[in-house]
């Protein structure tokens, strides 16, 4: 049966799994729960594959994206937001990444969470997240996309706060949620503006409108309608994808279980922002200003986060900051118009960052919950599989040939280099960020796997993780090796299959020129050199497992993440809390609202107190009241008749 | 003179009829008391009144005089209006109820105004009758309440309760007859009973025997007669609601009671015993001479009986009356036309007097109910039975209609 016609099955399966596990799972043994979860996810992955196959044929026939409305969701006046699903090349990539990586992470979780409480709850949340994420990528209009958008936000909140008994965990969940709200605010405004401009939220309608009106590209420095829309959408993207200035929630999100960090905060959800930007590339390409802002923000984030990542001691936090910085790369790509490269990096990053997180989880699992790298060391010999997998991931992210990271990052940097507006600067910063990336990643490797152990070997018995954790690691390692080869030929003048595959979606965007191969080869060489530099520096500094350095100067600043949280605390949260407490609570709530309520209550009391005298129990008074009522009714009914009589009587 | 009469006949004739009727009824009441005393006396093996006039015939007159000339004391702080209203109301209603009763079949002309034997011929006469009897309660109740005396109050309460209770049974017991006749007017009911001229066989008494029993018992209760005379149970309440009444007001209650006895007897006669119809088949003409056959011997006996008295009265009055009666009897034979006119009233009166005799007979025979017995009898026996009678009759009529 053509899965395309029944596209809703793909998101529905995880939803079913979630519902079953959530409603019934509490009584079931872990095995059944995990089978339900895996089954639903795996099936949906299979369906996604089938859908891609069918779409290939479909595209050959029609040369356009497949869109199918299933039912009306909101219909008001000329506004219609239906449950319409769309399938095109971009969706294909995203859907495969989400379901595939999600499936692997599910397998991994069955091992990782085996001894945790709330097993069924975890998988229910995880499946629910899958559902919303698929809705997000399959949606054919902004409204439905926003549903998925908020849904994944909710799931991320639930999963970050999975250990809700821990204060820090629930705080982190709240933080993530609230910071995302800020972005969502912008996103909604963007949607409203889109509807106001195009009288529709359907992707196809909007993009056709742009083509039909053949709107002019708004030049640099101007703030036209398109610019406004794009900036607002990008605001949402910064929230969801943890870009400056709203990245602060992501590191704290590491309070959640590691698979969650891998799936949500590395592979899928955080890339939603990139997806949105790429999806609405036709909008972005019509405004140079917004593109520039995106590029700058992306670039800045890439560098900034990398610097913070240098000195983190928590293994997961290092990865978190590296995630932020990698997302920065993606936005940089989109900003400079290389959407294909951005999505490409999104995919590869999904592979190797998931791999890294899972490996980190494996490490933590191996030495019993320790997350501080200063409490590790010398694990390479003890947990070989994990070590080799993590090394693969590290090499990939650092950008060594022939691993995936190299190709994607190289494409991005190349595109940045060719960008006409201060492209060289962006390239330079990006390159430096690449050095930093390679540095902190190898620092992680060294501190974790080499040098002498810094943990109590008598109490901690390091052991390799079970198969259902290591197998996904290996698969992901393989992916992060070969994942980049799709675009490999472009390097020596061949075809960039990935870019060509996505070309129909980014038709509006220029496909990065494959002309100057010499230049590209030079640049890639530089990139590799940067990675090597990072590697060497890290090796020199940490091969002997230096002590935790004394906090001073820039070191201290970096270690404390530029005091950004403190800064927000002082500038935003503090005043906000003060305002809430002193104005909104003490004045508005206690004074106005409660005042109103109490006033109404006391007023009612007073009225009743006066009116109750009519309730004298004296039948004669009641009789008179009845009489009054009767007269009123009579007058109303017979007014047409009485009017002339009374008036006549008066006259 | 004549044309004046013809012109206002519609006014004069009814007035005349009313006057005659009232006169007759009052005398009848008076002599009913005499008959009652006599009958009961004989039941109890006594002589009864026999001092005033022959056989005490003038006793009623004497009583009447006594009533008129007796002092009329007014009890302390009574409610005057009600106290005076009560007896008048009672008597008035009792007399009014006679107005709708037809005494004979004939229609005849006086001063060119066609009329009939009986005051008013309403086509819902039965309903009117019941309406009037329904109002009769007030007389008793008011009297009991107004005279400001425990005995009276209790009597009034009792009798009003009793009347309300038995009124239902009375009304329902008649419904059977109504179903058969399909008519509210008493005249219609009687004529319906004439049937195919088979005389007594087509009277309502046979299909409605249950109805009749219920009706008769309820009627006795309605008229506060023995054995239902609790309101005036001497042993408990002195004289019930009219304890405090004396002289003419008391007489009014008295007359009203006997009048209602007559009314009820008339009603029973009409509803169940074919009113003025002769019990014999129409084909038998010789039965028309029955009245004279009865009258002549009676007159002769009266003449003979008068001989025994030494005084003027006995010598003149009784023979006179006797000859008059005998003459009437003879006249009936001589003039068949008059005889025909007499037939209806004759049979009517005959039946009525039979009922009155039964009344008196029962008084002489039966003991008095207890109050609770009275109530439970009325509600738990009489009412259900009469309802059952109604249902039975209805079903029977339905089946009968199907058959024929």
């Amino acid at each position, binding site marked *: 049966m053509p899965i395309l016609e029944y596209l809703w099955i793909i998101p529905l399966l995880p939803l079913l799994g979630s519902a079953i596990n959530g409603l019934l799972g509490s009584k079931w043994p872990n095995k059944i729960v995990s089978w339900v979860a895996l089954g639903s996810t795996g099936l949906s992955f299979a369906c996604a594959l089938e859908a891609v196959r069918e779409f290939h044929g479909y595209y050959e026939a029609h040369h356009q994206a497949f869109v199918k409305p299933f039912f009306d969701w909101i219909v008001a006046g000329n506004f219609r937001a239906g449950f319409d699903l769309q399938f095109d090349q971009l969706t294909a990539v995203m859907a495969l990444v989400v379901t595939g990586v999600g499936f692997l992470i599910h397998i991994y979780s069955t091992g990782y969470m085996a001894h945790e409480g709330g097993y069924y709850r975890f998988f229910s949340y995880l499946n629910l997240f899958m559902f919303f994420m698929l809705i997000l990528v399959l949606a054919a209009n902004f409204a439905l996309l926003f549903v998925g958008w908020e849904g994944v936000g909710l799931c991320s909140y639930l999963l970050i706060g999975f250990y809700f008994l821990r204060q820090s965990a629930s705080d982190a969940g709240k933080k993530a949620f609230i910071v995302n709200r800020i972005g969502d605010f912008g996103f909604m405004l963007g949607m409203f503006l889109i509807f106001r401009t195009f009288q529709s939220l359907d992707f196809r309608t909007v993009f056709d409108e742009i083509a039909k009106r053949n709107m002019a590209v708004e030049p640099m420095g101007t703030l036209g309608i398109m610019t406004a829309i794009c900036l607002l959408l990008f605001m949402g993207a910064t929230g969801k994808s943890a870009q400056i200035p709203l990245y602060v929630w992501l590191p704290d999100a590491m309070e959640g279980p590691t698979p969650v960090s891998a799936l949500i905060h590395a592979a899928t959800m955080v890339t939603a922002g990139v997806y949105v930007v790429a999806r609405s590339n036709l909008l972005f390409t019509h405004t140079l200003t917004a593109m520039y802002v995106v590029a700058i923000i992306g670039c800045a984030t890439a560098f900034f986060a990398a610097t913070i990542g240098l000195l983190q001691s928590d293994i997961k936090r290092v990865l978190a900051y590296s995630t932020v910085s990698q997302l920065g790369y993606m936005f940089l790509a989109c900003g400079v118009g290389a959407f294909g490269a951005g999505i490409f990096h999104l995919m590869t990053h999904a592979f190797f960052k998931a791999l890294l997180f899972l490996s980190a989880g494996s490490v933590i699992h191996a030495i019993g919950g320790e997350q501080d790298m200063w409490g590790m060391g010398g694990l390479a010999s003890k947990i070989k599989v994990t070590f080799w997998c993590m090394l693969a991931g590290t090499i990939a992210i650092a950008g060594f040939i022939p691993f995936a990271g190299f190709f994607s990052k190289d494409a991005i940097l190349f595109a940045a280099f060719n960008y006409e507006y201060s492209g060289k600067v962006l390239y330079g910063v990006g390159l430096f960020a690449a050095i930093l990336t390679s540095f902190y990643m190898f620092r992680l490797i060294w501190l974790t796997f080499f040098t002498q152990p810094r943990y109590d070997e008598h109490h901690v018995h390091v052991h390799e993780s079970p198969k259902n954790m290591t197998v996904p690691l290996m698969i992901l390692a393989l992916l992060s090796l070969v994942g980049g080869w799709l675009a490999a030929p472009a390097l020596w003048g061949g075809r960039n299959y990935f870019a060509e595959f996505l070309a129909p979606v980014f038709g509006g965007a220029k496909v990065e020129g494959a002309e100057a191969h010499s230049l590209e080869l030079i640049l890639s060489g530089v990139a590799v050199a940067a990675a090597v530099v990072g590697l060497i520096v890290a090796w020199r500094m940490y091969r002997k497992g230096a002590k935790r350095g004394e906090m001073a100067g820039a070191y201290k600043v970096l270690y404390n993440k530029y005091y950004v949280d403190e800064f927000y605390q002082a500038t935003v949260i503090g005043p906000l809390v003060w305002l809430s407490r002193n104005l909104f609570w003490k004045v508005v709530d206690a004074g106005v609202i409660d005042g109103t309520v109490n006033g109404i209550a006391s007023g009612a009391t007073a009225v009743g107190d006066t009116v109750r005298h009519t309730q*004298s*129990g*004296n*039948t*004669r008074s009641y*009789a*008179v009241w009845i*009489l009054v009522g009767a007269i009123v009714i009579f007058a109303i009914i017979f007014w047409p008749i009485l009017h002339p009589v009374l008036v006549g009587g008066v006259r | 003179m004549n044309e004046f009469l013809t012109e206002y006949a519609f006014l004069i004739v009814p007035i005349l009829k009313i006057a005659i009727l009232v006169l007759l009824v009052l005398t009848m009441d008076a002599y009913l008391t005499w008959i009652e005393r006599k009958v009961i006396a004989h039941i109890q093996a006594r002589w009864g009144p026999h001092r005033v006039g022959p056989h005490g015939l003038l006793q009623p007159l004497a009583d009447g005089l006594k009533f008129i000339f007796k002092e009329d004391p007014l009890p302390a702080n009574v409610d005057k209006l009600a106290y005076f209203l009560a007896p008048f109301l009672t008597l008035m209603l009792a007399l009014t109820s006679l107005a709708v009763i037809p005494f004979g079949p004939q229609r005849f002309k006086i001063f060119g105004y066609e009329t009939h034997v009986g005051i008013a011929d309403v086509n819902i006469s039965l309903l009117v009758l019941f309406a009037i009897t329904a109002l009769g309660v007030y007389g008793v109740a008011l009297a009991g309440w107004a005279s400001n005396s425990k005995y009276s109050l209790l009597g009034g309460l009792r009798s009003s309760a009793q009347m309300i209770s038995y009124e239902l049974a009375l009304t329902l017991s008649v419904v059977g007859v109504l179903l058969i006749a399909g008519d509210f007017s008493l005249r219609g009911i009687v004529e319906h009973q004439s049937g195919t001229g088979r005389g007594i066989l087509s009277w309502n008494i046979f299909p409605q025997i249950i109805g009749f029993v219920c009706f008769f018992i309820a009627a006795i209760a309605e008229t506060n007669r023995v054995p239902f005379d609790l309101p005036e149970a001497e042993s408990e309440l002195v004289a019930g609601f009219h304890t405090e009444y004396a002289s003419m007001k008391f007489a009014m209650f008295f007359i009203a009671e006997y009048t209602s006895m007559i009314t009820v007897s008339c009603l029973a006669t009409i509803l169940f015993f074919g009113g003025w119809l002769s019990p014999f088949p129409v084909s038998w003409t010789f039965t028309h001479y029955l009245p004279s056959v009865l009258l002549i011997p009676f007159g002769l006996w009266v003449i003979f009986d008068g001989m025994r008295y030494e005084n003027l009265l006995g010598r003149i009055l009784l023979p006179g009356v006797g000859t008059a009666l005998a003459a009437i009897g003879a006249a009936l034979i001589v003039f068949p036309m008059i005889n025909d006119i007499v037939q209806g009233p004759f049979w009517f009166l005959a039946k009525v007097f039979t009922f009155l005799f039964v009344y008196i007979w029962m008084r002489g025979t039966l003991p008095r109910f207890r109050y609770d017995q009275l109530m439970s009898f009325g509600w738990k026996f009489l009412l259900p039975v009469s309802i059952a009678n109604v249902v039975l009759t209805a079903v029977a009529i339905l089946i009968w209609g199907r058959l024929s």
Partner: protein
Amino acid sequence: MVPTNHYLLLSAILFGLGIVGFVFKRNIITLFMSIELMLNAVNLAFVAFSQSLGKPDGEVFVLFVIVVAAAEAAVGLGIIILTARNRRSLNVERVDLLKL
């Protein structure tokens, strides 16, 4: 012939008098009587209408009204007896506790 309006106006007058009675009498029983008076006035109007329209429906309604009045009287008088027993007074103005 008597114009129907005569009957209707009479019934209106009786109804008004009933209202006055209901408002101005203090004795519960008299209050009830006033209600009965109003009902009678309505009955009169019913019969007048049914006669002038030549349809017996109005009279059927009258029958129903009478039945309802009977039921009302039965229950109402029961209540009155109870009240009089408990309150030792028939004056509605003295029976104002909204409970027996």
